[in-house]
Structures are given as structure tokens and as C-alpha cells.
């Protein structure tokens, strides 16, 4: 029995049938790469290559290649790290939290969003590893290995170590979540293919046969993974925020950081999902699956999380004044009116003011404006981390240690490297993997498709 309401918009337009879903998604995997895809891939690999020069220089010469100084010991690297991790929150949020809230619109976007999550976390994880200086000597020191490996135990009191556990758990659980969702779709491609492709997708599909019993277990697994991944996704950015908030640096030590970082992460993650999905739906002609309705809903999430972030900014500012702690008060005044005022106001404009434009239905249902604003939000969120990190550090406790930070070409190059990596991985994913979860979308063709609505 299908219950329909006049208030629910169809999630799939164009009167699609189950067969159409299979066809529309699989044909990109099966067809020859398009010219635009090849050009995009070449560009990404090019960016990766250029960035690799900076990375190689950093690894060869050492961290001295970066613009860090004694006062500002953390700058672009950790800004980029937090930025990428934040972006990596949307995928699991969409697939886990929206699953728990039974939001069916997640189904068209969760596959690509999760892929984006995984690639963003890879980019993020690179920064702490690079910052080790010579990671080949002992990146394994971050793991709790016994003393015979040449070190003491790792320090379980350190938030940096909590991060090691949080990021690796998040990465591996997200990967498994994503892969389990991919198995039925790989089976679909396997059953349409011949020759080598059949062998490869056959292996990837793990021998999936679509039996009701397996589907039933699959759904149980998805539900529990969602239940586990929801607190996990909150914990990751919480622990990232602990890196700063457990310290005694004014501007870093503030108790609102955990939920505020999580909200900011969702905010930037959705912005990146929008950026990528708007391109993907266009290039792959998936407008009937990723509809304006989807874009509008994501924009609403951006308004909500952007406003939460805005409230957190105001709270921090107010409490800094209210606390009566001079150092705390100075840190915030310095953010807004000190030498890095432009970073602060860039952050405020991009993160707090620009998402409020989405209150207008015209703007949040406009593809072009959404695309522009999604990039604006991502710029804003990068500046947020820059403001928190560099502005709080550059006025040290001792005025004689006050300093400014300016990035070197190596700083920028390594950042560029992660962009190249991210887009290369995403383009490979978009070509060789089904970008939409066919099985899940098929399950709502009847209840949320256009046919029942008309």
C-alpha cells in the first residue's frame, strides 16, 4: 500500500522505470570515456603532478620548506587537514544519519558523497603524515607498538593520538559501509557485461545473487552500520577539535568546539557534495535522479549548519567578553580587527552571511547560484580553520615572539597536490563505479517516482 501526500515532491522525475535506472547509471561505466572526462582527468593528473614537485621538495628538504616559524608551528598543513576532514563528513552523514531519519532523498546522492568522503579523508590523512618530516622512518610510531620498536608506548593522553584512532576508524568504517552498498550494483554491472569486465566486476560483486535472505541481512547491516557511524562521524570532528580545545591557547580552548566543529564539518561537506553533484548530474545526465528537490534539501542543510556555526561564532565572541579573561578577549578582538582581519571577515561573509541567501527559494533552487555559493562556503570554511589556527597562534604569550605567517610555494604546492589527488580519485570513481546507488533508488521508484504522483 502506497500512501502518498500532496506535499511530497517526487524524488525521481522523468517517469523512470527500474530498467531505466539500471541503464542510466550503468552506461557510464560501460561506455567509452567521454572527451570531457579525459580532459578533466588529464587536468587533475596535471595538478597532481605539479603538486608532487612541492611534495617531493618538502620530503627531500624537510618541513623547513614550509612557511612555519617558531611561533606559528601549525599553519597551512593543519588548516588543510581539518578542512579535508570536515569535507569528509558529508558522505557518512548522508548515508548514516539520513538513513536513521529515513530520508529517502539520500539515496540518489549517498554513493558519490561517500566516495567523496573517503577521498577527502585520504587527502586529510596525508598532512599529518607529511608533517612527520620523514614518514618512512617511522610513521608506525603512531601505533601502540611495544618498546622494542625503539620508542615508548604512544601517549594515550594526547588528542593527536586520539586523532590517529578516530581518523583510521572513520576511514575504514566508511570504506566498508561504502563497499557493502556497492556490492549489489557491481552485480548489476556484472550481469550486463561480458569478457574481462565480467570477471572484474564479478570479483568486485563478491558473488552477490540478490537473494531475499541476503538482502535482509544487508539491510540489518546497513542499519547497524548507520547506528555506529552516526556517533562515529560526530566523534571524528570532535576529536579533531580536541587537538585545539584541550590546549590552553586563547581562541583554541573553548568548550563549544566539539559540536561547533561537527556542524562546520557538515556544512563544508554538504557544500563540497553540492559542488561535485552539480557537475556530475550535468555531465552524466542524471538530472532525473539528482533533482532540483535534492539540491534544495542540501541547501537547507547548509542554511541550518551555517546558522549553527554562526551562533557558535557569536557565542565564542560573547563568552570571550563575558569571561573577563584578558587574553581571551584580546584573542577575539585580534581576530576581527588584528592583522588577519581580512581572513576573519572572509570567514564571516562566506560562512555566516552567504548561506542565509538560501532562505530565498529562488536562490536555493537555482543551479548556478547554488554552485557558486557552494564554492564560497568551502572557501569560507578554509578561512575558518586558518583564522582559528594561525590567528590564535601568531600573537604568542610573549610579545617578543609575535610573528606573521606567510605560505611558501611548497605550502601551496602540497595543498595543490591534495586537490589533484582528490579530483583524480573522484574522476576514476565516477567513470568505473556506479555513481548512483541503483539498488536503493530502485526501491523508491514506485513510492517516490513521478508515475504514482501523476
Amino acid at each position: 500500500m502506497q500512501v502518498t501526500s500532496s506535499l511530497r515532491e517526487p524524488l525521481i522525475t522523468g517517469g523512470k522505470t527500474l530498467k531505466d535506472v539500471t541503464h542510466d547509471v550503468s552506461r557510464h561505466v560501460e561506455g567509452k570515456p567521454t572527451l570531457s572526462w579525459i580532459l578533466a582527468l588529464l587536468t587533475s593528473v596535471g595538478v597532481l603532478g605539479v603538486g608532487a614537485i612541492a611534495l617531493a621538495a618538502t620530503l627531500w628538504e624537510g618541513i623547513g620548506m614550509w612557511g612555519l616559524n617558531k611561533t606559528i608551528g601549525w599553519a597551512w598543513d593543519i588548516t588543510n587537514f581539518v578542512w579535508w576532514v570536515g569535507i569528509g563528513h558529508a558522505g557518512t552523514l548522508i548515508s548514516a544519519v539520513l538513513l536513521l531519519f529515513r530520508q529517502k532523498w539520500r539515496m540518489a546522492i549517498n554513493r558519490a558523497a561517500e566516495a567523496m568522503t573517503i577521498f577527502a579523508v585520504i587527502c586529510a590523512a596525508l598532512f599529518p603524515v607529511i608533517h612527520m618530516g620523514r614518514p618512512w622512518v617511522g610513521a608506525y610510531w603512531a601505533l601502540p607498538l611495544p618498546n622494542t620498536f625503539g620508542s615508548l608506548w604512544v601517549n594515550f593522553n594526547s588528542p593527536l593520538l586520539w586523532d590517529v584512532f578516530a581518523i583510521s576508524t572513520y576511514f575504514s568504517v566508511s570504506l566498508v559501509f561504502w563497499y557493502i552498498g556497492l556490492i549489489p550494483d557491481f552485480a548489476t554491472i556484472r550481469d550486463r557485461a561480458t569478457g574481462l569486465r565480467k570477471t572484474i566486476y564479478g570479483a568486485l560483486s563478491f558473488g552477490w545473487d540478490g537473494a531475499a535472505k541476503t538482502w535482509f541481512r544487508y539491510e540489518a547491516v546497513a542499519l547497524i552500520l548507520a547506528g555506529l557511524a552516526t556517533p562515529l562521524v560526530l566523534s571524528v570532528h570532535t576529536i579533531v577539535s580536541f587537538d585545539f580545545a584541550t590546549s590552553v591557547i586563547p581562541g583554541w580552548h573553548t568548550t563549544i568546539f566539539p559540536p561547533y566543529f561537527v556542524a562546520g564539518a557538515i556544512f563544508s561537506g554538504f557544500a563540497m557534495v553540492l559542488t561535485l553533484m552539480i557537475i556530475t548530474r550535468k555531465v552524466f545526465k542524471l538530472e532525473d535522479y539528482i533533482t532540483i528537490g535534492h539540491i534544495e534539501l542540501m541547501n537547507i542543510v547548509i542554511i541550518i549548519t551555517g546558522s549553527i556555526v554562526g551562533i557558535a561564532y557569536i557565542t565564542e565572541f560573547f563568552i570571550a567578553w563575558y569571561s573577563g579573561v584578558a587574553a581571551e578577549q584580546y584573542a577575539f578582538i585580534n581576530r576581527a580587527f588584528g592583522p588577519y582581519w581580512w581572513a576573519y571577515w572572509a570567514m564571516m561573509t562566506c560562512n555566516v552571511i552567504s548561506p542565509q541567501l538560501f532562505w530565498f527559494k529562488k536562490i536555493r533552487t537555482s543551479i548556478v547560484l547554488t554552485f557558486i555559493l557552494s564554492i564560497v562556503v568551502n572557501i569560507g570554511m578554509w578561512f575558518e580553520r586558518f583564522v582559528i589556527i594561525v590567528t590564535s597562534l601568531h600573537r604568542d604569550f610573549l610579545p617578543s615572539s609575535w610573528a606573521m605567517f606567510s605560505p611558501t610555494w611548497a605550502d601551496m604546492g602540497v595543498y595543490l597536490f591534495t586537490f589533484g589527488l582528490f579530483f583524480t580519485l573522484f574522476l576514476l570513481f565516477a567513470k568505473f563505479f556506479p555513481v548512483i546507488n541503483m539498488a536503493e533508488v530502485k526501491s523508491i521508484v514506485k513510492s517516490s517516482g513521478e508515475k504514482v504522483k501523476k
Partner: protein
Amino acid sequence: MGKQVIDINWDQKFDFAGTFKKPIMKVLVLGAILLVAGIVIEMMAGGHEEVAEAGDHAYHWYHRLFAAIWVNNIYFAGIAVIGVFFFALQYAAQAGWSAPILRIPLSFGNWLPYAAVITIVSYFIVGHDIFHWTHSYLYDVNDPQYDRIIDGKGGFFFWPMAKGSFPIFFIVRMVVFFAAWALFFNKLKQLSYAEDLEKSDSYWRRTRTVSAIFLVFFAVSSSVAAWDWIMSIDTHWFSTMFGWYMFASWFVAGLSAVTLITLFLKDKGYLEMVNSNHIHDLGKFMFAFSIFWTYIWFSQFLLIYYANIPEESVYFVERLQSELYGPLVFVNLGLNFILPFLVLMTRDAKRHGVFLKVVSVLIIVGHYIDYTLMVQPGTLREHGGLV
């Protein structure tokens, strides 16, 4: 599944008569007796000796009563506004599952006008003993008890009047918040009734718009209310998380109250549309937000514990290292996290009334203790406690 014909008695009305009135009256009388008994016991227990030595800050029996009144004000005003918040949230999110139960949280809003009057009136009676910052000597530079830090915050309470005089800004905020909450409640109630009577989507759309505006207002006002009504009791202390902490506490208590009343009415044969799936969803909400509250509690605690900055950690030192409040902190965590978490973990527990009723009661009591822990140490010091 086939076609199911759902036969519901749409005309069912809740009749607040004898069978319901009696137990409620009994509880009311019992409460009154306990109140009088409590006052008498407190008066007898004295605190007389200290009067002489401590002067102005002496502990009187009525301080205890005042602290209790304040805890009640804030706690129940919170549950009332959370009812409206939950209702608005469901509309804003276009939720369909909650339609049969939405009138229950909405009805909580009926308490808001009373909560407003009681809170505002009682502020004038108990405020001076609850809020340290109301003492005018704190702002007098020549007074030996002058407090530079509180003087710095004075504008937040007294602006535009002179510090230490009449806290006009504080009072205005209190009045505005309560008035706005009550007005939003009335508007939503009207729209909700109209939506039932006139079968048109336009009411749903208008409710959604009003809900969205209310949510924005509530997002700001709940945080500021938390700073005003609770955080400023420990006047020196501050925590950026506090607004969200108090919201989490209110929210989970409100959810438990919704669940408890739903189950109660269901037992009495009302709410035919509500089936075990609705109950399950309420259970999931309680489970999830118990964890959320714990997350907020723990994050705030861990950061303060870890950084160990004296002006912040004093808040937890006062609580954890006190014989009176130390055990209560663990009771708080036990009732609001460990028990709900363990009991509601299985699917069956979230679908069966018995477990849910027990857990709702635990949470409602637990968060009362939570509020007691927020209010008492700053007002009663070593004279607090639950009994």
C-alpha cells in the same frame, strides 16, 4: 501488504474528568504536604549559628526553597518550550511519522504563560539569593567586596542602567523570550487546529514557515536563556558550551515527557493511530538524545578537566570534590546515560511500553537532578543536596 482499511475514531476526545482529575489532585495535595514538611524540617534544622559569623551570606532555610523554586521554574519552562520546539521541528523537517502524536508536545506549550509569570515574579522574590551578581557592592570600586570580573560582566545584566541597580537588560530578555515563545506557541496552535478543520495544504505550509522562524528564534534564545538563568548563577564561571548543554538537557527531558504521556494516553485507550512503530521512534529519539546529552556533557567536562585552567575547573571541583554533590554527578550520569543506554539498546525495549515508561521516568528525574546540580552548588554551597 494489500489494501488496509484503517478505521479510526476521529471524534475521540480527551475527557479530563473524575478518573484523571482525582490522581492529579492527589499528587498535588501530596506535593503541598511535602513542601510544607520540607520547609518545617529545614527551619528546624536551622543554620542559626552561622548567621552571626557569616553576616550577609548566611544560610537561611528559605534559600533552599528558593533554589528549588528556581530549578522548577527553569526545568518545567524548558520542557514546555521543548514541546513547541519538537512540534516545530517536525513541521520544518516535513516529518510524517509524528503526525498522530504532535498535539502532545504542542500541548506542553500551554504551560508557557504560567511559566513566564512564575519565573518573572519569582525572580523578584528569589533572584537576590540565587544570583550573586545582583549584589550592588560587587560593582562599587570602593567596597572591599568589589569584584573586578563581575564588574566587567555587569553590562550584560544591567545595561543601560548603572551596574548594581536594576537589571533591566536581564529582565527584558526574560520577558521577551517568554513572550515570544508563548506567542509562537499560540500561532502554531491556531494553525494546527485550522489545518485539521479546513482540509487545505496551505495551513501546513504556513505552519512550516512559522516553525522555521520559531526555530531560528529558539536557537538564539535558548542559548542566551541558559547563560542568563543558569550559567550566571556561578557568576565567575563561563563555558561556551553551556547554552547547548542546557538545550540538550531540556530536549531529552522533553522527549521523555512526550513519550511518557503518549504511553499513558495509549494505555487509557486514546490515540488509536499510534502503533508500536511510533513508540519505537520515540524510543529511538530518547536513546539517541540521551547519548547526545552525554556527548555534550563529556565534551564540556573533558576540555575543562584536560586544560585545567583554575577559573574553569572550579566548576567541576565544586561538584566532584564535594561529599554532597560528588555522588550526585555519578547519579546524574547513571540515570541519564548508562541506564537509558543499556535499557534502550535492544529493539524490543524501544517498542514495549514498560521499558520506555521506566526509562522516561528515570530521565525526567535524572535531568531534574542535572538542574539541581547546575543550581545548588552556586547558591546553597554545602547546604544543598537532594534530601
